[in-house]
């Protein structure tokens, strides 16, 4: 099987049962994506597949041979963090760090959804989406953080989004 991850092509022979998450972690050495629950209940495994955030634990690797997959490793490196990653460091948007790659991948996808004007559960008027902390909180609720860095995560995302003018794009 062949996979496109972070712009590179990987070849691996895996069991059909192998999740996209386990493919990355156990077969390709991409351990940035985390396994917190293996059942879509925590968000630590969040990856971007064709630009959309998904729980990589709840999908089979074999189903993604034609997809463009992005993991945390594809967003930035320790010496070259992207603005969102840098904002997480600045605002202490994590403690133990285990949920963090998932939070950052999720936030990346989430900001794209906001930019497209997708509504959320807290959107008052479905036709008009605004960029608020409540929107960030609701949209990031699929990513548990037991250290509970939530307020700092919201600050980090807000700052990164504002710096990228994504807020305006969403309005």
């Amino acid at each position, binding site marked *: 099987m062949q996979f496109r991850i972070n712009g590179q092509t990987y070849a691996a022979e895996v069991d059909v049962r192998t999740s996209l998450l386990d493919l990355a972690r156990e077969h390709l050495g991409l351990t940035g994506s985390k396994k917190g629950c293996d059942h879509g209940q925590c968000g630590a495994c969040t990856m971007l597949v064709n630009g959309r955030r998904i*729980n990589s634990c709840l999908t089979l690797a*074999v189903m993604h041979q034609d997809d463009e997959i992005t993991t945390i490793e594809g967003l930035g490196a320790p010496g070259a963090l992207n603005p969102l990653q840098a904002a997480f460091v600045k605002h202490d948007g994590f403690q133990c760090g285990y949920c963090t790659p998932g939070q950052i991948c999720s936030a990346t996808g989430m900001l794209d959804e906001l930019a497209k004007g997708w509504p959320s559960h807290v959107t008052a008027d479905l036709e008009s989406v605004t960029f608020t902390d409540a929107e960030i909180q609701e949209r990031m609720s*699929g990513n548990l953080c037991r250290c509970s860095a939530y307020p700092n995560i919201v600050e980090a995302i807000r700052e990164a989004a504002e710096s990228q003018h994504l807020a305006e794009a969403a309005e």
Partner: protein
Amino acid sequence: MKPFHYARAGTPEDAARAGAVAGAKFIAGGTNLLDLMKLQVETPEQIVDISRLDLNQVEETEDGGLRIGALVPNADLAAHPLVRQRYEALSRALLAGASGQLRNKASTGGNLLQRTRCYYFYETGDACNKRSPGSGCAARDGFNRIHAVLGASEACIATHPSDMAVAMRMLDATVATQLPDGDRRRLSIGDFYRLPGDTPHIENALRPGELITHIELPAPPPGRQLYRKVRDRASYAFALVSVAAAIAVEEGRIASAKLAFGGLAHMPWRDGAIEEALVGQAPSDALFATASDTLLRDARGYGHNDFKIPLARRVLIATLKELTA
């Protein structure tokens, strides 16, 4: 997870044929199926991947309704301009469910087929007539806080977990399918789902291999719509009680009322008697009390879920007040 054969289907017809084999299951988003397969609650021998079928459009129908491809992801359906404009309850139900990641993956057809969150269904060591017919029901005398208060049976007190399906039921959706023999059929959502009775393992009217291809919505009902969900945390939790509603008031009287409920039963709950009681009447506290009495006339709690009865009553009354105000 047990080993299985994996094949990708090229057309709905191929999929239905492949799915008719004993032990076969379709996979689209996979968000519920893989969850259950990891725990061996589901043990398919054959997985038919339908995720690449061309069933992901939302089209307007001639009668002013919508035809929704079974593979349209929940997130896309919630954000679709026509859904937002005309079917607010559906958009809101979808957005109240799961998480952004799951909504990106979960399909419209798969959402209808979600299985219960009953704790005892999920644990293969426990008695569960739904998972293992004839083994009993561990929930009745166990911890049943999330269980049904309407339409349950001796065999099963599980609830259906979907938010979307509740809105679909309120909106009188029709489920369109492809059969393995090449035929197609259409089922009203009310006929699609089943109450548990003696066969809680049979949850819907689908035949072996029958593939949901579309969900069709008639033109939107008159009046204002809402979806209200009550849950244990602010987000990312299943409904304890939910209601999808569309109510029209004309000249001081209720002209149209459509109501469906989640969290109460084995299927999204709809009770024509409530709607009959409401239509033609002027909104009043007494009327709303009657409506809630009607909804809960046969309600029965099993201990931990007793609270759902007063909760459903309160939510219904608040919903009626809001939509008739």
